[in-house]
C-alpha cells in the first residue's frame, strides 16, 4: 500500500502502515544524503515553498535541503520581511504563494489548525511543520526513524517523554506515532505542565522522573519553551532543572542502554545537561541528520501522480 495522501497535517489520522512506509522510504533517502553528490532528478520542476511564521533552524533547513537534494526548486518566505508585516492576512498570503507556482507549501504557524486551513485554501500539497501546540508530524517521524535505526523495532518499546507536555506539539505527534506502532508511552513532568486527562490518548502519567525512567528504553526530552510559558506554571528554571532536568545523576537511574533524544534546540543546564547531551547514548545530532532523510521520503511519496495528480486526499 502506498502513502497517497495529498497533505500531511498530522499523525493522528495516519494508519500504522502509512507511517511504516514513510520510515522504509527514508532508508534509501539517507543513503543519498551520504553521497558526495547529493542530487537526484526525481522532483525536477517541482517548487517547494517553506512558509514559517515561527523561527526554526532544523525543520526549515532540513525541508529545504530535502527538496533540493531531490532536485526541486525551493523558496523560503521570510515572514518577518514579507507583506505579512504590511497586514496581508493568512489566506491572501497562501493564495499569493500558490499563484507564484508552489507545488508544496511547508507551513509552521502558531495557530493550531492553520495547515488544515491552508489545505482548504490552495491546491498545493501542504505539510504541517508545526502548528501551535497541536502537531509536528515530521519531528515525530524522524524520531521514530531514529529509534527504528538504533533499536530495530518500535513495537514494545517503553518510551518516556519528559517536559512541558501541555504546550508540546512534538509530544503529541510522538504519542500518536509511537502508540500506532505499538510502543508504550509514559509522559512525565511537573503536574502543572501535563494536561489533565491525557491518559485518554493511551499514555501513562508519572510525575516522578526517576520512577518514570527506571525501565525506559527511550527518554525523549522536550525543551522548556520559554516563549510559550505562561507565568506561574513552575516556580523557577532552577527548580525545574533540579526535579526534571536530565543530568548524569538522574540518568544513572535509567537502564544502561537507554536511548536519549531531544528535538532541539536544547536549553543546556535546564532540561538537559551538556554532559548528557554528549553522552554516547544520546542520538540528538543523528535526529537532525535523519530529519533530512525523512523529509525527502515524505516529499517523494507525496509527489505521486505528478503535479495535477489524482491522489486520494
Amino acid at each position, binding site marked *: 500500500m*502506498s502513502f*497517497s495522501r495529498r497533505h500531511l497535517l498530522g499523525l493522528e489520522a495516519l494508519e500504522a502502515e502509512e507511517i511504516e512506509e514513510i520510515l522504509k522510504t527514508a532508508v*534509501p533517502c539517507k543513503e543519498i544524503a551520504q553521497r558526495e553528490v547529493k*542530487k537526484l532528478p526525481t522532483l525536477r520542476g517541482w517548487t517547494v515553498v517553506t512558509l514559517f511564521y515561527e523561527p526554526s533552524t532544523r525543520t526549515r533547513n532540513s525541508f529545504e535541503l530535502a527538496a533540493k537534494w531531490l532536485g526541486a526548486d525551493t523558496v523560503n518566505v521570510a515572514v518577518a520581511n514579507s507583506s505579512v508585516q504590511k497586514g496581508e492576512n493568512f489566506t491572501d498570503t497562501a493564495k499569493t504563494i500558490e499563484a507564484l507556482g508552489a507545488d508544496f507549501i511547508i507551513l509552521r504557524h502558531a495557530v493550531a489548525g492553520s495547515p488544515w486551513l491552508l489545505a482548504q485554501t490552495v491546491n498545493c500539497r501542504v505539510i504541517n511543520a508545526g502548528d501551535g501546540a497541536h502537531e509536528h508530524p515530521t519531528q515525530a517521524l524522524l524520531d521514530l526513524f531514529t529509534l527504528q535505526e538504533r533499536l530495530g523495532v518500535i513495537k514494545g518499546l517503553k518510551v518516556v517523554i519528559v517536559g512541558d507536555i501541555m504546550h508540546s506539539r512534538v509530544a503529541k505527534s510522538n504519542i500518536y506515532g509511537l502508540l500506532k506502532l505499538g510502543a508504550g508511552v509514559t509522559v512525565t513532568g511537573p503536574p502543572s505542565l501535563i494536561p489533565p486527562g491525557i491518559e485518554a490518548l493511551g499514555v501513562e502519567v508519572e510525575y516522578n522522573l526517576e520512577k518514570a525512567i527506571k525501565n525506559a528504553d527511550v527518554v525523549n526530552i522536550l525543551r522548556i519553551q520559554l516563549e510559550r510559558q505562561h507565568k506561574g506554571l513552575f516556580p523557577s528554571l532552577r527548580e525545574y532543572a533540579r526535579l526534571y532536568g536530565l543530568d548524569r545523576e538522574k540518568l544513572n537511574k535509567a537502564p544502561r542502554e537507554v536511548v536519549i533524544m531531544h528535538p532541539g534546540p536544547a536549553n543546556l543546564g535546564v532540561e538537559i545537561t551538556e554532559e548528557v547531551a554528549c553522552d554516547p547514548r544520546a542520538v540528538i545530532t543523528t535526529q537532525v541528520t535523519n530529519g533530512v532523510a525523512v523529509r525527502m521520503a515524505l516529499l517523494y*511519496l507525496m509527489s505521486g501522480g*505528478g503535479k495535477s495528480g*489524482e491522489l486520494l486526499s
Partner: protein
Amino acid sequence: MDDDAIRRVLFRLSHEITEQNKGVDGLLLVGIRTRGVPLARRLAGLIKQQEKADVPVGVLDITFYRDDLTIIATQPVVRRTEISGRITDKKIVLVDDVLFTGRTVRAAMDALMDMGRPRVIQLAVLLDRGHRQLPIRADYVGKNIPTSPHQKVHVRLVETDGEDSVVIEEMDNKKDPTPVI
C-alpha cells in the same frame, strides 16, 4: 525457459563477461533491483569459480531516476542502493533480468553517472524481448525472445520467487500499449 536453461545461459554469460573484459581486473557487477541483483550475485559466483578471484557486486535501485514517476498514481517503493567504494574508473557490468524498452537501463546509467565516472558500462541481461524505445543495447544476452508489446514476460528466480523459470503471458486487454518499466 526452465531452470536448467537459465543455469546454462548464466554459465555462458559469465564466460563472455570475463572473455570480453580479459579477466576481472577493475570489474564491478551491478544488479538492478529487483531481479538483477540475484542474477549479478550468481554471475559473480560463476566468475569466482572460473577465475579464482572475487568480483564485487553492487545493488542499484533506479526508482529515483525513473522517467514515469509523474504518470503513475502512487510512488513505487524505493529501496537502498548499495555500491561500496568509488565507481570511477571501474568497468561496470549492469545486470538485469529483462531488456525491453531500455528505460530502466537509461535510468541506471544516469544513477551511475551521478555516483562517479566509470571507465565503461556494459549491460548483461537474461532476456532481450525487443521493443526498444531508446537507443540502448545489451553487450551480453542470455536469450533473445521475440514478443509482442501486449505480452508480459515473467521471470521467476529462486532467490525472489522460489523457483527459476521464464513464462510469457498473453495479456487479455490490449488497450494500453505503453509498457511500464
